[in-house]
């Protein structure tokens, strides 16, 4: 029998995104509104001055959430439903499964991304180069988040651990990183702390691309380098640590 790898990728998108949103519409509502909580808060506090940055921040949050939630879904499928056992012992390839789950994470983020993209087109006036740069950063931060999700799922054995990971990651990626406002809003004494979060580098590049944060070329280069390096390291760890057949 000829194995259709696209079918294998599609299966994950169906189970973990399409069927979930179709059969549990509440997850669709949740997926749409989740990135807006902080966005609305920032808009109110800044009297609308941070509109473009906070829309961008919500887009970055959507990308990060996709990856962070991926570790919950992977762990759920493996530990609670034993579905991964059924798949390992089938012609499903590990790569097709991982790609499918990553695509499912993106599909889950799609409703929010669509609304935010409309808002971005309406309220962010970026140059074509700036828009492409922002898209590149989003792709990279999504890759980073997905790699992080896969890495954490290899360590996690149950839902309690998943919750703990989510809480810690929320602090690292969304609280200490200035994704909804410029880094200059953080007091200078503790600003260095923000650079512990990879999301800070993504936010700086994106904010610079739409003209909201001036950055020197060397700083910009460092931001790209850190973001690419962290993503690569995570992918290497995933490749080394994750296993399709249990050792």
């Amino acid at each position, binding site marked *: 029998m000829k194995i259709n790898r696209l079918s294998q990728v599609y299966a994950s998108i169906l*189970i973990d995104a399409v069927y979930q949103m179709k059969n549990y519409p509440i997850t669709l509502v949740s997926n749409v509104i989740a990135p807006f909580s902080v966005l609305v808060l920032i808009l109110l506090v800044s009297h609308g001055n941070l509109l473009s940055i906070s829309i961008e921040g919500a887009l970055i949050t959507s990308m990060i959430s996709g990856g962070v939630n991926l570790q919950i879904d992977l762990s759920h499928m493996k530990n609670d439903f034993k579905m991964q056992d059924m798949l390992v012992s089938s012609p499903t390839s590990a790569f097709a*499964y991982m790609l499918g789950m990553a695509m499912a994470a993106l599909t889950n983020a799609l409703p929010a991304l669509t609304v935010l993209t409309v808002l971005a087109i309406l309220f962010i006036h970026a140059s074509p180069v700036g828009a492409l740069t922002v898209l590149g950063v989003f792709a990279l931060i999504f890759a980073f988040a997905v790699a992080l999700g896969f890495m954490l799922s290899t360590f996690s054995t149950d839902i309690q651990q998943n919750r703990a990971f989510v809480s810690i990651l929320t602090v690292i990626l969304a609280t200490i990183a200035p994704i909804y406002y410029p880094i200059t809003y953080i007091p200078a004494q503790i600003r260095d702390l923000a650079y512990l979060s990879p999301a800070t580098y993504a936010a700086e590049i994106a904010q610079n691309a739409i003209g909201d944060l001036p950055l020197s070329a060397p700083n910009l280069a460092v931001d790209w380098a850190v973001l690419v390096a962290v993503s690569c390291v995570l992918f290497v760890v995933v490749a080394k640590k994750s296993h399709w057949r249990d050792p």
Partner: protein
Amino acid sequence: MRLMGGSLECRNLTKWFVKDAPALDDVSFSVGTNGIFALLGRNGAGKTTLIRILATELQPSSGSASINGMDVMKDAGKIREQIAVMPQEARLVPWLTPRQTIYSYLLYRGFGRKEAASKVADALAKLGLGKYENTPNRHLSGGVKRRVLMTTILATDAKILFVDEPTTGLDPLIRADLWATLNELKKTHFIFLTTHYLEEAERLADMIGILENGSLLSLGTLNQLRSVVKYQVSVRILQGGASFETKAGEVIRSADGSTQIFTTEEEADRLTEHLVRERKRFSIYPISLEDIFYYLVRKPIEEDTQRSLVRREEAHED
């Protein structure tokens, strides 16, 4: 189509999860890949570990295994195309329907969308699940859920099925339904079944293996296993059998006061007369798989792990 001529072989298969206590300890056996092979064992005996190694889900610590000549480590890709597994603790994804569950699994196995959809319809009809096809899995009863899982692996083209404790927790009627399905399936598939229901193995299996503490204690057909126990009859005295002695046989007493005697037909006749005279409550029957199992794993009938068990063997020559 019936599978012909192949075999499943384990050679010195060992698996360690923790030091000093192997989950599988030097297991070697060979069985033909047709009909049903039932692997019996208590909880923690190593059944699931063995099935996971054979189903290419888990690496052995040492030793090797092959299915129809394909090594589980080197030829995992080929084996995976020919097997399907229903894990012991598998649960249906609650937000899917049976149709979506089976369809997705077929896509995972690499079928195209049209072919998968057609196979789903066939499988649901075959196992009489048509009326549940669009009911969310979370609303299905335990028995229907197990049938959906079974249908999921049957919808594939796999001719070798690993089914890990498929009837655990099911009521007797649903269990009988699943037994009927398995009995039908064994005409065209090789089914590797693990169970701790001795009746299940007795009714379904063509070959039976008994696993205890990671070691294979015995392997054979039911008749071959019977010959392992020297006696043909089992007499069970419910209470007050402690003072009984047999002229030929083996006595196992448990702390709850019951006594099990494995003996010959002649001695069983003599014991029966005696027990009737003494007005004792007892049962007598040809030795069953359950008896063989307890005999082999050296555990008294009516096992209660909370109590201390007393076991004494008495065998007297006439």
